């Protein structure tokens, strides 16, 4: 800490404040005007956020709700009455989800900070009463932080910039929520679809095991053969149980994002994922698109500007970061016989003396912060471009894989099944081979669903990456392989 030397300027040194120079008055007035303008925005800046995210493909044509009202709750109920498609899920999350309200509250906080920063510092009234023998001294001082006043425009501008950044961040949060909801919806529907097919696969194993049991009962099969079929059933059952758990978990994830509870949580999902789009979209230069449109890029840039602004402030206040100017009126009563009363008037200036701290550290810190923020801008830029390339590639790969399943694997699987039926008809293959093939088919269909799911996840990632923010730890392949393991461990 700077040693602060308090110099009492009194008596002869004290001069009466007579006339204020015009220049000062003008500056003061402008500050007042500025401070007067910095009022809390009625919506905490949410309208600006809406403007930032409106028209984003992730938004499903809806606007995020700052606080749920009765009308919006009615619309949520209306959406929940039907099987919930992905747009409806996003809408509900944006109306009802706690995360969106959290984002807006955060934004409102930043708005409050902004207004706070642009508010004139309050004058400080100090009063002291001192006694010495019969003397009583009353000291009254009205002081005002002059530096605060002088730096107010900077503070206000900086806080404004920070609020702008906060808006971009809130917009990102909204888009993230939309994207997360989309992903959760895709996962929940796919998982539910998987359960249906794995249930069929289990049923095939069940039929095999039951027949095997009857085979053994009438003496056609040994314990070894029967047990093998029972093993398949046990395996299929375990797989189904895992898939059912995955379906519950992914559905609950969606429920949480939509902020639903109670009876509302028993919504129905459609039976299947939407079909694949006809063709890959023509996107042009995805990197340029991401660098231009991504909110986190814009946010980093805005933050950088704000830091740059604060650099000026720091420079200005590096040497003298506190100056208090106070008007002092001292009255001394002497309670002796003549009861004299003396009044001293003057002013008091608190000024740190730059002996030890010449502000180098503060300046260095500000510069470092600026460099840090510039580095972050670059980092976000590199990230955005790289993620755009990756997401675009991921989209294409996921699309190709999903199409391969749709156009090749599943039709071929079906053909294998048909051929196996023919072989069964010709007594060339047993019913167990037939059931085994059926089971394999169900697993292939399941893998096809997963490929379709991964495509829609990659699609959401791509949209978020291009127009929203970093999806964070994406790569469709990783998600796929990670979630593949439990659901389709058998194939």
């Amino acid at each position, binding site marked *: 800490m700077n040693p602060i030397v308090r110099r009492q300027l009194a008596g002869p040194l004290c001069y009466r404040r007579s006339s204020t120079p015009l220049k000062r008055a003008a500056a003061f007035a402008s500050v007042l005007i500025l401070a007067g303008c910095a009022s809390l925005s009625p919506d905490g800046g949410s309208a600006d956020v809406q403007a930032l995210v409106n028209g984003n493909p992730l938004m499903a044509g809806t606007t995020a709700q700052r606080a749920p009202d009765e009308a919006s709750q009615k619309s949520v109920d209306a959406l929940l009455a039907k099987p919930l498609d992905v747009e409806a899920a996003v809408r509900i999350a944006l109306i009802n989800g706690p995360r969106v309200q959290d984002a807006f509250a955060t934004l409102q906080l930043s708005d409050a900070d902004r207004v706070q920063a642009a508010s004139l510092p309050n004058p400080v009234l100090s009063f002291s009463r001192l006694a010495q023998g019969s003397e009583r001294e009353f000291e009254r001082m009205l002081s005002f932080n002059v530096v605060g006043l002088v730096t107010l425009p900077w503070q206000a501008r900086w806080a404004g910039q920070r609020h702008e950044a906060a808006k971009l961040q809130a917009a990102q949060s909204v888009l993230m929520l939309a994207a997360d909801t989309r992903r959760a919806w895709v996962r929940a529907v796919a998982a539910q679809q998987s359960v249906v097919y794995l249930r069929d696969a289990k049923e095939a194993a069940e039929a095999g095991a039951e027949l095997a049991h*009857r085979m053994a009962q009438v003496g056609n099969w040994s314990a070894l053969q029967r047990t093998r079929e029972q093993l398949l059933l046990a395996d299929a059952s375990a797989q189904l149980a895992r898939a059912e758990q995955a379906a519950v978990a992914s559905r609950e994830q969606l429920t949480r994002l939509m902020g639903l509870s109670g009876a509302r949580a028993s919504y129905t999902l459609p039976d299947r994922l939407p079909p694949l789009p006809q063709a890959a979209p023509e996107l042009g230069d995805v990197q340029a698109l991401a660098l231009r449109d991504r909110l986190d890029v814009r946010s980093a840039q805005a933050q950088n500007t704000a830091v740059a602004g604060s650099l000026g402030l720091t420079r200005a206040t590096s040497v003298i970061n506190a100056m208090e100017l106070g008007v002092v009126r001292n009255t001394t009563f002497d309670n002796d016989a003549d009861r004299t009363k003396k009044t001293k008037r003057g002013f008091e200036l608190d000024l740190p003396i730059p002996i030890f701290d010449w502000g180098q550290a503060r300046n260095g810190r500000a510069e470092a912060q600026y460099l840090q923020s510039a580095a972050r801008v670059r980092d976000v830029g590199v990230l955005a471009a790289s993620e755009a390339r990756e997401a675009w590639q991921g989209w294409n790969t996921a699309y190709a894989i999903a199409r391969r399943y749709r156009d090749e694997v599943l039709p071929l699987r079906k053909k294998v099944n048909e051929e196996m039926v023919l072989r069964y008809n010709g007594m060339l293959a*047993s019913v167990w081979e037939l059931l085994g093939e059926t089971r394999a088919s169900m697993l292939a269909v399941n893998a096809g669903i997963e490929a379709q799911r991964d495509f829609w996840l990659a699609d959401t990632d791509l949209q978020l990456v291009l127009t929203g923010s970093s999806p964070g730890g994406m790569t469709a392949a990783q998600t796929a392989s990670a979630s593949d393991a439990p659901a389709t461990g058998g194939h």
Partner: protein
Amino acid sequence: MNRRNFFAGAATAVAATSVSRVAMAALPEPVSQGSTATAAPLVPPNGRPYNPVVTLNGWTLPWRMNAGVKEFHLVAEPVVREMAPGFKVNMWGYNGQSPGPTIEVVEGDRLRIFVTNRLPEHTTVHWHGQRLPNGMDGVGGITQPHIPPGKTFVYEFTARRPGTFMYHPHADEMVQMAMGMMGFWVTHPKESHPLIDPVQRDFCFLLGSFDVEPGSATPKVNTMTDFNIWSFNSRVFPAIDTLNVRKGDRVRIRVGNLTMTNHPIHIHGHEFEVTGTDGGPVPRTARWPEVSVDVAVGQMRQMEFIADEEGDWSLHCHKAHHTMGPMGHDVPTMIGVDHKGVAEKIRKLVPDYMVMGDKGMADMGEMEMPIPDNTVPMMTGTGPFGSAEMGGMFTLLKVRRDQKPGDYRDPGWFKHPPGTVAREVPNANMPPATRKETPAPSMKNSSPDATVRKPSGSGAHNH
């Protein structure tokens, strides 16, 4: 049953291939056969006369006389053999078919056989059972260089002893025989022979086995035992022509075995004698009556009998699997397995599913269900009384009093004289056999039969 006219083969005739005459100037024109029908016997146009044979679903190779030498031209080549209508197999054969044409010569004939190789790999021809100079025996690498693809070799020898023979490659033999390279050879006696009786009907065929995956068309050449196509002259029942004879005819049936297992050939309704092997005519004192003769691998047997019982008599290999078409040898026995509840469940998953085999496999012969392309049902063929439930090495000997001499046409189904067909006993009132209520003893865990005993002392089997 899709029976072909015996004379269809004669009508489609023998067509010259498009090989250049200049290139073949010194060779007899190669003759190719496109039909799988049984060709009419080839009455010898020149040379010593003989009583020709009929090759079941096959034909006899024509020859030309060149300065007193009988010249034949065999072309080894890839062919597509129709083993049954709609079931075509990529094989290797001779002159358009597998098996190749029957070569008929007369004892003492001087022979020159040109062999052109149109296969993708070298080959040779071994004249199975012939007395000939060692260098004409056709064992590639041992007695002669292999015939490379595109080349023509010539074999020259004299047909020294009468009898039943065959020819096949002795080069990459395993593959080439698995692909159907084989042919029949008959050497007729030049004059009346004390051990060879004249016959009115003389049939010949080769036994062949192939492993053709249902739905595919090329035999698996590496199969050793688990064949699924069992054939007479590369045809399977009901596509094998019947042996049609006149009542009272002396009939000779010559069978050669080029499979990798033995085949007990069984004829219904008559007893026969084996009058010859590939070693020659059997002395009369060594003949005994039989109704089945086991033809071992690589052997030939010549059975003779008087066809004196009218009717449609089965003629088949007595190995039950050999009178079946392709089947899944790993398909477990389903007999007695109750499908109640399970069948519905399976049908939900596989709508075309039908329960089969729970009462036996006769279902297969009766149900007309789609099976893989380019294969034949495991058992098929219907007679006047229903499903024959047969396939593979099975045909009929049809004996009719009104079959004209020399007429090999199929006379149709036998018209049984009244009262000569097995019939139901009316009001017998015997309850049908039902499934045993108690499981077999081996299935009861408490039963001592099911407990494993260590092979020690007198309790164990004495091996």
